[in-house]
């Protein structure tokens, strides 16, 4: 019953005829310490729409994947500063660079754009294959793009070698519980 109520929830736009529009843009240094900042910022940005916990988790994971990719692949900053701000010994220099995160809420649709001016992706379709990674030594899973695709409704990647990469994602909020949660 609760589930039904959720899905039938009318969005505010139906009453006023005007779709809510809200936009934000963040630019931050490409260091690992900013990954959690980025996903928490996006979560706070969508909070007024009362997203479900599941939707919030999906958005946070997708943002985390995109931002992490920019930092460790785009700018090759593999480690962050330590817990007390120290620079790890394995980390001689930090490549300068910024990640730009743009969010646009249009009605109940959230658009997220993560942009970097890093080294770019030579072969996007290969990069999007699950388990493909250019940095196997990091013991990451190669599931970044697969997660973004799974957790968001739409994913678009644009990239130019040595120029940078833009990842655009879209998600409709307020569609109710996960479809996959039935199994």
């Amino acid at each position, binding site marked *: 019953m609760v589930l039904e109520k959720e899905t039938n929830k009318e969005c505010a736009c139906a009453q006023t005829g005007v779709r809510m529009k809200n936009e934000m843009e963040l630019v931050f240094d490409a260091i690992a*310490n900013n990954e959690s900042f980025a996903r928490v910022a996006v979560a706070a940005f969508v909070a007024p729409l009362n997203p479900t916990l599941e939707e919030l988790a999906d958005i946070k994971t997708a943002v985390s*994947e995109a931002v992490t990719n920019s930092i460790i692949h785009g700018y090759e900053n593999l480690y962050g500063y330590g817990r007390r701000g120290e620079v790890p010994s394995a980390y001689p220099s930090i490549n300068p660079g910024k990640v730009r995160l743009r969010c646009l809420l249009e009605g109940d649709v959230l658009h997220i754009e993560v942009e970097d001016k890093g080294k770019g992706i030579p072969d996007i379709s290969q990069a999007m294959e699950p388990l493909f990674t250019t940095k196997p030594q990091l013991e990451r899973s190669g599931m970044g793009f697969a997660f973004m695709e799974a957790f968001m409704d739409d994913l678009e990647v644009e990239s130019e070698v040595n120029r940078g990469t833009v990842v655009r994602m879209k998600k409709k909020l307020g569609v109710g519980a996960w479809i*996959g949660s039935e199994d």
Partner: protein
Amino acid sequence: MEEFQIIDNCLMVRLPQEVDHYRASYICEKADRYLLQENVQHVVFDFEDTKFMDSSGIGIIMGRYKKIACFGGRVYAIHVDKQIQRILTISGLHKIIEILV
């Protein structure tokens, strides 16, 4: 509570609240040190505190699995909530590790 604990022949890893790339390198490094130094056969990841995980967490589990599977070791995930379960399922990890809710 200790983050890493050896109980019998199991390495218990209590994961932090947020498992992301920033935390992952520390966890991998520390867990591998235990795997090398102690007599560990199985690894148990405890998700009790974990509220957030991304693909870096999958990397941690996959990496440890590769290191112990050839010696007959198993990987367990305990206190897994719905969100973590979903991530484990999407990544296919649920086929190679034991998930206990």
